[in-house]
C-alpha cells in the first residue's frame, strides 16, 4: 500500500516535471520555477482558507434572501415556463 502511494507520488512528480519542462532547466531555473509555483499555490490556499468560508457564507446568505423575498419572481418564472 505504502509502496503504491510512493509510486503514485513519484509518477505525479514526474508529470509535474514534464509539464513544466523542469527536467530541461538548470538548477537555479528549477528553483525559480518551483518557488513561483509554490508561492502561487500557497497564496491561493491561504486566501481560500481565510476568505473563502466567509465569502461563501455571504453568497449563500444573499442567495437565500433573494429566494425568500422573491415570491413574485418565482411565480413569474412559473408563468413564463
Amino acid at each position, binding site marked *: 500500500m505504502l509502496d503504491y502511494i510512493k509510486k503514485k507520488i513519484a*509518477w505525479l512528480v514526474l508529470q509535474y*516535471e514534464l*509539464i*513544466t519542462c523542469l*527536467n*530541461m532547466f538548470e538548477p537555479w*531555473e528549477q528553483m525559480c520555477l518551483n518557488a513561483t509555483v509554490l508561492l502561487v499555490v500557497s497564496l491561493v490556499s491561504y486566501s481560500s482558507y481565510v476568505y473563502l468560508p466567509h465569502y461563501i457564507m455571504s453568497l449563500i446568505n444573499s442567495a437565500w434572501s433573494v429566494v425568500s423575498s422573491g415570491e413574485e419572481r418565482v411565480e413569474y418564472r412559473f408563468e413564463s415556463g
Partner: protein
Amino acid sequence: MKVGAFREPERLMRREVAVVPKVTAGRAERCGYEDEANGTVTVGETCRRPNMATEGLLSDGAHQLKTFAVNGKHALNVVNGKANGVVHSKKNGHVTAHCNGTTTGVPQSEPKKKPHSKESFEEVPLVTAVTTYMGFYLLVVLGYLNQFLFAPPVAKERNRKGYVPLYNRFEQFYSRYVYRRIRDCWNRPICSVPGAEVVLKDRITHDYGWTFQYTGLEKKCLNLGSYNYLGFAEATGQCAEDSIQSIKKYACALGSTSHELGTSPIHLELEETTARFLGVEAAITFGMGFATNALNLPCLLSPGCLVISDEKNHASLILGLRLSGATTRVFKHNNMKNLEKVLRTAVVQGQPKTGAPWKKIFIVAEGVYSMEGSLVHLPEVIALKKKYKAYLFLDEAHSVGAMGPRGRGVLDYYGVNPHDVDVLMGTFTKSFGSAGGYIAGSKELVDFLRVNSHAACYASTMAPPIAQQIITSMRIIMGEDGTNEGQKRVMQLARNTRYFRRRLHQMGVIIYGHEDSPVVPLLVYMFSKIGAVVRTLAKKNIAAVGVGFPATPLMEGRIRFCLSAAHTKEQLDNVLDVLEDIAETLGLKYSQLPRYKGVIQYEDENK
C-alpha cells in the same frame, strides 16, 4: 463536366510553350486511359512510346491496368490499395483525415470514423495542447531571463556598432535557450555502419549543453533512426564488395561535372538501371538529393507558372519552388478536396492581376512524407491532374525501394502506371544506402534536364563507389542477382512495418500516418517529453530521432522511428517492451481510439 473549370486547362495547354512535359502528358493519355485524341502530341516519336510504356511492366501490366481502373473510377472517394491485396485491419480503428475537405489542417481535422481508411491523424487532446503551450512559454520566459542575467558563453561579434544583427534574433535565442537544453539528443556521433545496430559515441556535458566532452566509451544501440529501409547500409556483402571493386576500376571520384569529364560508364549504367527499375524511359542522376529538387524545379518552372504544393513538402522542394519564381499555392496535407478546390480556383481565376492563363500548372507531392509517415493519395491526384491537365511532380525520396510489393515506390504500391506521373524524382540516400538523387520520366524530359539543369552543369558527378552501391542494391531488389534476397527484404520491411505500427496502436499511443509506411512518428507533443523519451531510449540501447519545432508545428513534438528490413522481430519486440514502459511512466498514451484487444501476430514469411 464542371463547366468553366474544365475548359480552361485545355486553353492553357495550347498556349504553353515548353516541349518536354507537354509530350509527357500527351503520352500518358495515349497509354489508353483516356480515349480523347490529344492535340498536343506533336513529336513524332511519341507514337512508339506507349508500347514501351507497358513493355517494362509487362509482368504486372494487366494487374496494373486493372488496379488503375478500380482506383481511377472512384478516384475521389475510394480508399485505395485494396486492389493491391494488402490486408488491412479494421480492428485497429484507424481514423482518417483523408478527403475530409471541410475541416482545417490535418492535425486539427476532426477525426471521422472511416473503418476502411488506412491512414490516421488523431487529434491532440485539449489538456495536452494546453500543457504543451504552457511548457513552451515557460521555456521562453526562463530562457529570456537566463539570457538577460548571464551572458551566453558564445563568440560575439565585435566592432559592429551601428550594424543590424546579421543573424536572426529569435532563431538564435531558440537554439540557445530551448534547443540547447535537449541538444544531447541530436547529432550523436556514431562510429559504425548504421545498419540494424549502430555504435554511438558516448559524450557528456558539464555546462547544460553548451559544450560536450567524449567519455571514450561507446555504446551499441538498436538503430531506429536511419532511413535504412531495405537494410542496404552494410559494411560487408555484395554491395560493399562491388563498391570496393568500382574504386579500383574507376577511382574514388571524378571531380568534374557531368558536362565535362565527370561522366563514366558507371554513370550511364546507373541511369539505365534506374530507368529500368522504375519502368520509365530514361533517368538522370545527380550527386545530391537535395540539389536534385532545388536545382531542377527551376528548370521546369518559371514565373507565370502555377505550382500547387502539399503543405508538408520537404524543404528542398520548397527551396526549388522559391528559386523558380513560380506562383505557389499550398493545399492541405493529403486533402484531395482541398487540392481540387485550389486547382479549380487557380484555373478559373488565372494569373493574379492580369487574369491571363497560367503557363503551366504543376502539382508537387511526395510519396511518403518523412515527418508525417503518410502516403500520397496517388490515384486521386492522378485523376485530378488529368482532369485539370496539370503536370505531376512526385518526390519519391522515402518511398522508392520502401513501398510496394516489388519495392518500386508508391507507384508500385498503388499499381499506377509510371507514365501517369510526369516527373518522377527520388533519392538514393534512403533505401539504397547510398547518396544522390534522380529524375526519371520520358526521354524528352531527361534530355531537357541534361542540357538545362544547373545540377548537371555545375555540380560534380557521383563518386563511382556510391554509384556502384546503388546499381548493386537495385539489381538485388529487382532480383537480377539471381536470388530472391531483394524480394525478401521488401517483404521483411512490410511485415516489420505492419507489426510495429499495430503494436504501437494497441499500446494506445498516437502514431501518425499510413499503415504501410515505414516511417512511424510517435506523437509526444511536449518538448520535455521529446528529450525524456530519447534519453530513456538511449539508456536502454535504442537510438531513435526526436523531432520538434521548427521541423514540426510547435505543438507536435514527436519521436520518429524508421523501420528497416534489417530489424528482426526480436529486436522490434524489445523496442516495443521498452516503449510500453516509457509510455506508461511518461504518460504518452494519448490515444482515445478503440484498441485491438487480441494478440498481434507477426506475419508469416511466405504470406
